[in-house]
C-alpha cells in the first residue's frame, strides 16, 4: 500500500496523537484544518516575497504552526509532550510586529487587500488565522485543550500577517495601501 494513504480514516474518523479517534467533522479537526490552511497560504506568500527577512520570518511562523498543530492534535494527556508554543514564542511575535510596524507605520483606516499578490495572500492568511483562533477559543472553552498561549499565539500571528502585508505593499513601491473608504 502506498505511504500516501492509510485507509484508516475511511470510516469518517481520524486518530489523535495519543489514544483516541475523532470524527473528521469534530471541532478539533476543524481547528487543525484552519491552521493547516493558514500554513499553506503563508507558504504561497513566502514563495512570492522577494524580501529575505520576510521569507525567514514566514518560515519560522510555518514551523511554529507545525508544532502548534501537533499540540492541538494531541490527546489531553499527551499535549504537554508536544508543546512548542510558550510565552516566549508570543513575545517573539510581538517583537516582530513592533519592528515591522516601525518601518511601515500604522494605517488609520481600514484597507482593502489586493495591492500586490504576496500582500493579498498575507491578507488571506490573516483571515484564516482568525478563523483558527475562533475555533481554538471554542476548544479551550470546552476544555478540550488547556494551553491558553496557543490562542495568544494565533491572535498575534494575525497581527503579524497584517504588518507583513503592509511591508510587502511598501516593498512593492506602492506609496500607501488602498483604503476601504473611497475618499
Amino acid at each position: 500500500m502506498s505511504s500516501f494513504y492509510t485507509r484508516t480514516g475511511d470510516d469518517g474518523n481520524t486518530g489523535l496523537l495519543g489514544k483516541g479517534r475523532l470524527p473528521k467533522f469534530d471541532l478539533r479537526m476543524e481547528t487543525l484544518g484552519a491552521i493547516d490552511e493558514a500554513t499553506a497560504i503563508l507558504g504561497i506568500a513566502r514563495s512570492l516575497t522577494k524580501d529575505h527577512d520576510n521569507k525567514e520570518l514566514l518560515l519560522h511562523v510555518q514551523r511554529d504552526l507545525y508544532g502548534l498543530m501537533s499540540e492541538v492534535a494531541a490527546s489531553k494527556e499527551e499535549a504537554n509532550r508536544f508543546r512548542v508554543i510558550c510565552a516566549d514564542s508570543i513575545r517573539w511575535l510581538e517583537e516582530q510586529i513592533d519592528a515591522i510596524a516601525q518601518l511601515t507605520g500604522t494605517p488609520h483606516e481600514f484597507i482593502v487587500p489586493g495591492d500586490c499578490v504576496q500582500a493579498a495572500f498575507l491578507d488571506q492568511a490573516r483571515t484564516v488565522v482568525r478563523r483558527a483562533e475562533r475555533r481554538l477559543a471554542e476548544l479551550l472553552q470546552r476544555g478540550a485543550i488547556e494551553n491558553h498561549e496557543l490562542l495568544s499565539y494565533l491572535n498575534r500571528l494575525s497581527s503579524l500577517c497584517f504588518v507583513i502585508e503592509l511591508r510587502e505593499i511598501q516593498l512593492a513601491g506602492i506609496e500607501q495601501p488602498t483604503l476601504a473608504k473611497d475618499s
Partner: protein
Amino acid sequence: MNPTDPQELVFLRTALTELPDYLLSSVLFWPLSGPFTGDLTRLTLGNFLLVLIRLKATETASQYSPELLSIQNQVVQLKNKEPGLWRRKAGQEFHARIQMWKNSLIEMMNDPGQCSAEFRHAVRWRVILELLKEELYPETATADLEVLQHLDDMLRRLCNPGQFLWASDLEASFPSNRFWFLYMNI
C-alpha cells in the same frame, strides 16, 4: 518545573553556536531550529543561564560535566569579548521578563483558583530575572529593579513559605536566601 531532561543539554549546545549572532541581533526571543519543546524553543540569555545552572546542579558528577564546563568557559569568553552586547541584551530581557512576571502575578491575584499551578510554571520567570540581575548594567535598569521590588513585595503577601518547588536535586543550586520565591506556596 520537571527535572532536567536530555533536551536541555541539546538546547545549550545549539544555543551556544547561535549566541554570537544572537548578541549582535535586535531579536530578543531568538527562534532555535531543532526538536525543542516546552519553554526551550527560543534562545534568550535568561533561558540559557537557567538551563546551564540546572544542568550543572544535576550533572556535576556525570559524563556531561566536562562538556558543561567547556560550555561555561566559552560563555565566559564570549561575555568578556562582548561585555557591552551581553549586558545590553540582559537588560532588554530583564525589561521584557518583568512585564511577563507582572502580568502573571496580576492574573494569579485575579484567579486564585488557578494560582498554584500557574505559580509553579511562572516562577521560572522570577528565577530568570534573578539570574539576569547579575548580568545587566544596574544603572540602566533602575526603574525595572524598582518594579521588581514592588512585585516581590506583592508576592510575599500572596505566598507562604513552603517546600522547594522543583526537583530536589536542583535545590543546592538554588539556595533559599537568593531564590526565596522557589520556596513559596500560594
